[in-house]
């Protein structure tokens, strides 16, 4: 089966030496790949290349041309005078020419997307009044309205309460089951074992593969800079204290 997205030998940076190097992976339909690494490890840079905002220094990206992007909800403006439905409707900008007003079909698509993320009842609620988890789901709905084969999620579990995180996880599983490819950037390992594959980045690609086989102590040390500690009684094999939280991307 041809992958939805193929990245080969990718290096990218901002004028100086590469911020991330040697990235090679395939994303197939129905797969969820967790992109792991410390802050500054290159996750955001990889996403920027995929979204076409940054030209790669080396290597190639092929396959999907349209991406649904779900940014961190912590960055969205809470004082903006829009409802959840208005935000979901923003997903039509790439489908309906921007100079045309949106019509009934778009509103229906936006309401359907909100229903998919269990927010049909809150469609008319002001975006800034929603909880962090609900806002994150609205942003997922917006990406669904874009109707792209590949979804990129940037730290979707940051600032999200546990019930919302579980909802989000099962939602991502359903979206993948429908044949989408999903990349989830995260700096914590909480859900890593649940993804189909993990891509470990720390300024270069440390490892890529099935989480159970890939997330060895050695890989985690290389990914997170050595601050790996066992967490007795937890589901994950090891816990991680990220060493480079101060770095920016």
């Amino acid at each position, binding site marked *: 089966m041809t992958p939805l997205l193929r990245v080969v030998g990718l290096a990218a940076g901002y004028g100086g030496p590469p911020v991330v190097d040697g990235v090679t992976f395939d994303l197939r339909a129905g797969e969820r790949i967790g992109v792991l690494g410390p802050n500054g490890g290159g996750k955001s840079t990889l996403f920027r290349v995929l979204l076409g905002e940054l030209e790669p220094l080396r290597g190639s990206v092929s396959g999907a041309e349209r991406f649904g992007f779900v940014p961190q909800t912590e960055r969205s403006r809470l004082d903006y005078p829009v409802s959840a439905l208005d935000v979901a409707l*923003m997903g039509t*900008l790439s489908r309906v020419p921007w100079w045309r*007003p949106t019509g009934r079909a778009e509103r229906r698509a936006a309401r359907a997307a909100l229903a998919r993320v269990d927010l049909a009842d809150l469609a008319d609620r002001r975006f800034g009044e929603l909880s962090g988890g609900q806002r994150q789901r609205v942003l997922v709905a917006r990406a669904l309205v874009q109707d792209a084969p590949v979804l990129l999620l940037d730290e979707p579990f940051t600032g999200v309460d546990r019930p919302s995180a579980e909802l989000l996880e099962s939602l991502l599983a359903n979206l993948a089951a429908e044949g989408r490819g999903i990349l989830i950037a995260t700096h914590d390992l909480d859900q890593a074992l649940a993804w189909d594959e993990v891509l470990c980045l720390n300024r270069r690609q440390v490892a890529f593969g099935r989480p159970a086989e890939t997330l060895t102590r050695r890989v985690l040390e290389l990914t997170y800079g050595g601050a790996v500690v066992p967490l007795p009684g937890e589901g994950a094999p090891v816990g991680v204290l990220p060493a480079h939280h101060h770095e920016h991307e």
Partner: protein
Amino acid sequence: MHALLQPWTLGFMQRALLELLLVGIVGGVLGCWIVLYELSYSAESLAHALFPGLVIAALVGFPLVLGGALGVLAAAVAVAVASRVPGIERDTAVAIVVTALFGLGVLLALSPSSPPGVQSLLFGDLLGVSASDLATAAGLTAAALLGLAVMHRQLLVVGFDRRSSRPLGGRPLLADLALLALVAAATLIAVRGLGNLLVAAVLVAPAATAQLLTGRLLRMMVLAITVAALCSVGGLYLSYYASTAGGASVAGLLVVAYLSVRVIRRGA
């Protein structure tokens, strides 16, 4: 009742009100974007920076629209050049350019050899608005509203989250340029009645007041237009019966409206 209706039997009062309503419609809608994009100070700077363009056009006998457009371009180039001078912060560069250009415009407008009409570009001449001024303002208002309608979705997406707007099809540069052009258009609409000095009042105050009252964009726009219209009527009454300057009365009431809503909302 007679005292309330009497001002509107006069042609110059009718024209003043129509001019203010046109300004209020564009200022109310555009103002919402200016407030949401946190561009209030930039909008005022731009209105002032294009002033010499207006004055020169009036002196040479060119259409004001052309003068305004050239004024905006000159201001943009001057800001870009000044920002590149080493050792000058961008903020400082903008302040220097705006002050220099506005000063130049005032110098020309208030020069003894300038015809009297040119001075009104600075302070406005609300009660002297002519039918042809109104026709120009109406044409510009229609163009500005069309521009606002066409740009609505772009402005909405870019303003919500500039950084992640591109994957959605957002074009931040286009949104910024459109707002720049629209502020220039609004300045041209308002300059005859309110004068260059008070344009910012109608661009910022109604929208800022409306923002205190609602959390939805379309409602905010309608409320901003309503606030502008009410203050226009009130300002004209004030001007008529208390013999105060028309433009300043309207601007003053807009500030009073904003402060009142603020105080009431805080008390509620």
